[in-house]
């Protein structure tokens, strides 16, 4: 079963315990839809923050794919159809080199080459190799390589990385709750893991560079899945594990603010009020504490009241990060 513990992706355990419940998704067809309001789809600036704990048991995230040859994504927060943004976990690699990525993804007006396209950032950590600001981190058009264990990291720009050379394998090392956040603003995307900035991708286009959504797509931002690429009423890429304390802002929360949110633990920071290094309370667009513990609705504690609805039976869990 899922267990509370240290994550591979960090060594600091949050100090407070305010969250009593999280939501357990089974990875087959369940998710939370958030109402579809425009407030959940910021354009010029964005932050998404969540806690996630993947199911690494047999039948869970680590279950080997029988087809054995393609990347597999599971969305923490998904709003990608033909455009949009998403925060997900991907897994691939080989049996010898299992790789678990966190991916921040958004289609933006200018992804750095003058055209609209998807801006991806991928962060994989086994022992935190791949120093920040290395050539790989700066790596325009640098694809993730199926390299030796412990050092395959990179940043990919300008489109989906195919990942087709990877083979699936058992994920053994992503256990416990991890805090993950993505920010977008002034043409810069950042990916934080457990309160620490891990990836920065600067398009160099700081003005008028927006997240692009499909003009006709009024579908709802989802928690625990992504929008289905084709079927307008469906979800896709379901997450197998626990999610807690999800929030969306229409501003790029700075590094100090992200660290504050992480260090205070799930629900440890009142996002609607200034709290030390956190001062983005006026930018909060959606905040699903996922702390009701019962029922099929989850309240949005921002001013927008984007009440979420549990779809297809995700379960309440008392397993939380703090």
């Amino acid at each position, binding site marked *: 079963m899922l267990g509370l513990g240290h994550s591979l992706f960090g060594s600091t355990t949050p100090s407070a315990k305010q969250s009593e419940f999280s939501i357990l998704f089974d990875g087959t067809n369940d998710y939370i839809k958030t109402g579809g309001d425009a407030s959940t789809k910021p354009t010029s600036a964005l932050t998404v923050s969540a806690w996630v704990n993947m199911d690494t048991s047999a039948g869970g995230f680590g279950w080997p794919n029988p*087809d054995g040859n393609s990347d597999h994504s599971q969305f923490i927060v998904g709003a990608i159809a033909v455009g949009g943004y998403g925060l997900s976990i991907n897994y691939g690699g080989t049996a010898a080199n299992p790789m678990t990525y966190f991916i921040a993804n958004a289609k933006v007006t200018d992804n750095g080459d003058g055209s609209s396209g998807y801006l991806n950032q991928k962060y994989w950590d086994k022992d935190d190799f791949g120093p920040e600001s290395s050539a790989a981190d700066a790596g325009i058009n640098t694809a993730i390589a199926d390299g030796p264990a412990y050092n395959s990291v990179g940043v990919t720009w300008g489109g989906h990385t195919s990942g087709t050379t990877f083979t699936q394998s058992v994920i053994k090392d992503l256990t416990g709750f991890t805090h993950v956040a993505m920010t977008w603003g002034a043409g810069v995307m950042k990916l934080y893991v457990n309160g620490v900035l891990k990836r920065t991708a600067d398009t160099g286009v700081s003005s008028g560079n927006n997240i692009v959504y499909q003009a006709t797509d009024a579908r709802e931002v989802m928690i625990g899945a992504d929008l289905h690429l084709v079927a307008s009423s469906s979800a896709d890429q379901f997450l197998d594990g626990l999610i807690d304390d999800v929030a969306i802002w229409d501003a790029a929360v700075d590094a100090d603010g992200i660290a504050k949110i992480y260090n205070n633990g799930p629900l440890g920071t009142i996002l609607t009020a200034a709290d030390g290094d956190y001062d983005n309370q006026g930018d909060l667009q959606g905040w699903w504490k996922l702390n009701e513990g019962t029922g099929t609705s989850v309240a949005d504690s921002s001013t927008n009241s984007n009440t979420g609805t549990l779809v297809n039976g995700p379960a309440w869990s008392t397993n939380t990060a703090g």
Partner: protein
Amino acid sequence: MNYVILTASEVSSIDFSKVLENSTSTLRYNNDNTKTFVKFNGDTLSFLDGKTTLNKAEMKTELFKEEWKSEEE
């Protein structure tokens, strides 16, 4: 958790008060829309008598097959 795969023609027999899926509109289908599935806790449901019941690991194995995989993966 128990899972049962159904054909599209069997959807009309689903008692949504007994399964965890919300409604016909939230069912997940395979890529050619010929199969779907439902999940439930506890004993086998009467309207699913005679159907093969899968556990989570077995269901995930099914869903990793090409016929269920997303175009995005």
